[in-house]
Every structure is written in C-alpha cells, then in structure tokens.
C-alpha cells in the first residue's frame, strides 16, 4: 500500500539538495506538484530532465529552487526559449550540465539495471564529452578492436515526479505508453506521483491497463491533483494551454516579469499573506 496524501504533503517529502527527475513537457509532468515545491521553498535541487524539460524546469529555475540542471535541452518548444533557463545560464547563476537525449536515457537505464555505467554509441567528438568529466571514453573493453566507445555513469535520482491519468487504491499508477516514466520510476530511489482520476480495482491485474501501469513498489507517495499537469497537457485528457505558455515565455523574459507571474500563478494567496 502506498499512502495517499495531498500535494503539499508530497512536496514536503522532497529534501533540499535532492537530485530530482523531471519528465519532458509532453509526458505527464506534475505541474501542481512543481508549484507546491516552489511554495514549500525547496532549495538547491539538482534536476535531471528526461531528457528535455520546459515549463517545469523553467519555473523551478526562476523561483531559485535549482542549483544544477542536467538536460539534453531546456526549451518551451513552439513557445520559444525557456526564459529563466536562458537567463540563468547567461548570468552564471545556474550550473548547466549539458547532455544529450540518449545519454540521459542510458544513464537512467544503468540505474534501472543496477550497474554503475553503460556504453553508448556515437557522441565522441561532441564538445559535450569535453565538458563532462564524469563521462569516460575508453578503448573497446571487450578487446574486439571495435575502437573507442563512450561510457556514461548511472544516474540515480533521489526522487522522480510523475502526473498520471489514473491511480488505484493499491498505489499503482497508469501512464500508458509513456514508457520513459517506467524507466524514471525504476531508476529513482522513489517516485512521487499525482494523478487525475482514481481507478476502481487493481491496475496491475487489468489485462489491458496493466501494460501501462507502474506498480506500487516504486511509488513513495501519491496525491490526487485534478488537471494537475496544467498549463501543460495530458495526452488523452487535455491539451497544453499554449496561450498561457506563450504569455509566460514573454512575461518571464525579465526576472521582474517572472516574479509577477510567480506571485500571481504559483504563490497566490500565500504571497499576499507573506507580503
């Protein structure tokens, strides 16, 4: 059984300084939990985008919750550059560990399999390798004369975040074909999940839904959050609010603009009370 709680209590379970895994913006991001983390005032997070991020990372960066960002890219997609990320890298306040999509997937799969590293083809000659002193290029360790190959160390997040369309009373969550969320949940020490709707019955026993179900043994905390991915979309349930995201992209171009957005959309009454 995984205890059910509320989103604010989930946010309390994330310690300052944690290594947290963020799904990409198209893949069931628990934005209400991200906002709750900001309200809780979490600090010094090291965030891994799996393998890219947008709104989720940008809000955490703008609100001063992130110390280090590791990603293949941070972008608001069609809404353009991620403003807080761009500003943070350019003014040096954010440490960016540049990576590439398959390296992040592979590093999480290494943790999923409990091995300290995994090999990855390609990449050699990219300047990414030059700046990643945790990566290692070696001569074919099988001794088959296959030339040099990159080894990337396992990434084991302390906490992974997911927003699921369905959850059940046993603590299982359903994420459909978003299989990267399985990988994140397996790789992370624990996963905190919000969900849209409660499913009656056991998702792991359902002959069809079980294929998209992450079992309770990976889930450390669960809270309902209706429309919990907004303004991002939840495929099959609701689309992204592109107007909101575009307006954010514009407003957050300055820190003052970001702060106004944060006060209005995230801190809400709390900011009023504190001011």
């Amino acid at each position, binding site marked *: 059984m995984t205890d059910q709680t509320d989103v604010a209590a989930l946010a309390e379970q994330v310690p300052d300084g944690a290594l947290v895994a963020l799904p*990409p913006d*198209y*893949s069931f991001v628990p934005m209400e939990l991200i906002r709750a983390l900001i309200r809780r005032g979490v600090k010094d997070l090291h965030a891994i985008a*799996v*393998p*890219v991020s947008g709104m989720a990372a940008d809000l955490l960066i703008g609100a001063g919750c992130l110390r280090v960002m590791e*990603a*293949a*890219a*941070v*972008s608001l*997609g*069609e809404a353009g*550059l*991620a403003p807080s*990320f*761009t500003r943070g*890298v*350019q003014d*040096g306040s954010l440490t*960016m560990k*540049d*990576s*590439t*999509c*398959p*390296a992040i*997937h*592979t590093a999480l*799969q290494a943790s999923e399999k409990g091995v300290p590293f995994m090999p*990855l*083809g*390609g*990449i*050699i*000659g*990219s*300047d*990414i390798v030059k*700046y990643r002193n945790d990566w290692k290029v070696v001569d074919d360790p099988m001794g088959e004369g*296959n*030339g*040099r*190959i990159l080894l990337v160390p396992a990434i084991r997040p302390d906490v992974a975040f997911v927003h699921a369309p369905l959850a059940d009373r046993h603590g299982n969550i359903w994420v459909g*074909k*978003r*299989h*990267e*969320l*399985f*990988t994140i949940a397996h790789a992370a020490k624990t996963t905190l999940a919000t969900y849209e709707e409660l499913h009656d019955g056991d998702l792991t026993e359902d002959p069809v839904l079980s294929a998209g179900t992450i079992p309770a043994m990976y889930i450390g905390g669960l809270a309902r959050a209706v429309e919990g991915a907004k303004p991002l*979309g939840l*495929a099959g*349930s*609701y*689309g992204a609010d592109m107007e909101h995201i575009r307006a954010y992209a514009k407003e957050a171009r300055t820190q003052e603009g970001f702060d106004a957005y944060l006060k209005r959309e995230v801190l809400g009454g709390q900011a009023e009370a504190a001011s």
Partner: protein
Amino acid sequence: MADYSSDEFLISVITGLLPEKGNAAVGAASPVPGSAVLLKRELTGGALRASLIQGTSNNPFTDGGRELFDAAGQGRIDVFFLGGVQIDGQANLNLVGTGEYPALERRFPGSFGSPYMYFTVPNVILFRPEHTRRVFVEKVDFISAPGVSPPDVQRIGGPKALVTELCLMSFDRDKGRFRLESVHPGHSVEEVRDNTGFDFDVPDKVPTTAEPSGEMLGVLRSKIGREIAGTYPEFAERVLGYRAELSA
C-alpha cells in the same frame, strides 16, 4: 509554372531528397521536414514510413522517449533532420549557443539527441532556412555534433545534404566538405558565397533547384494539410490552408 509559397518550395526540395522506402523520423518543431516526409509517404504508397516524434498522431513509437534513439542505434531509422544555431564547413552542428562555453553570450536550448542521431542515421538532412554568415560559420563555437569522425570511432550515420532558403548542398564525408548542388530559383552562386562563412566546392555548372510540380502541390495541399495538422495545426492552416477542427 505553379504558384507556391517558400515553405511549399522547401517541402518540395526535401521531398526530392527522400528515399523510396524505409523509415524517416522527424524531431520536434519541424513542420517543413514533417510535411515533406508525410508527402513522400503518400507518394510512395506507404513504403516510406513516417515518424513525427512530436505529438501523438503519425507517431508510431510506443516504448517511451528512448525508442527513437534505440531504433536509430538498431539501424532502423534511414532519414533524420537536424539544424543548428551554427553550422560550419565540416558540418559540425552547434545547438547550444554562441560565445565561449559555458559562459555563453547567447544560450540556446541544447544539443537534444543530435550527437547520437548524427552517428546512427545514414541520411541526415540538415535543414536551416536562414542562410547567413551568422549561421554558416567557419568554425562553430560549440560542437554539439561533429560532422565527421576519425576511423577508430564507429559511425554509420552522418550529413547527406543541407537545405537552406538559398540552395541545396551535398556533403562529402570523405573530404569533409560541402558541395553546392543547386541554387534555388531567383538566387545566385554569388549570393550563396556571400552569405556562407565557410569554403565549399562549386561545380562548373550549378543547376537551378527544381520547382515543385503541380501534381506534388496538389497532393500536398489536399492530403498533407490534414495529416500535419495533427502535429502542427497552425502550420497546416497558415502554409497549407488546412483548418483542423478544434480539439484537445
């Protein structure tokens, strides 16, 4: 000669570069390559398979974000598209930013999967409409993905062609150099040279890039608008005149 927009022209140029069968994949935010791939799928009766990674329609992948990369590593992806903030004469791509890394003057999103797809996909088509010396530089500030590799690094994939608003170039991997293949109607070799910061090969006679046929434009407008609207509704409406019904 048919009347067409510049986007329709570029879709036509890319379509002409695509193989008759296999798997073509298109990354995020790429409506022009996406339209070209869907058009070629239509023209080949489905023999060329199309995967649009962004969005849920025309996206056959069911095993999460790694499946595209895994499939490329398996040798199943025949065509992919890459661009860059900067591209240099050795086909090195920079998607990270300009200035000195890590304290960049201008930061862009990041390298995405470029240094992997560039090594694993045999036909990478570089698509960068803006043809200026700001983009096409002598040497990129940051190599997200290298154009060529030494022999002790296994590499099947790499750059095949470059499509811009001015011209079509091919890339010779052995020489590590671009070659001008054709110049788009209304433009000249001099214009290409003036706006390119790197040296490239120019044949004695440079043809003009073929224009889209009326038939191709007909298929594009009648069938591809609806298809691409599932991924890029605004593009489908603006460029191809297709207005999708409102839906999530």
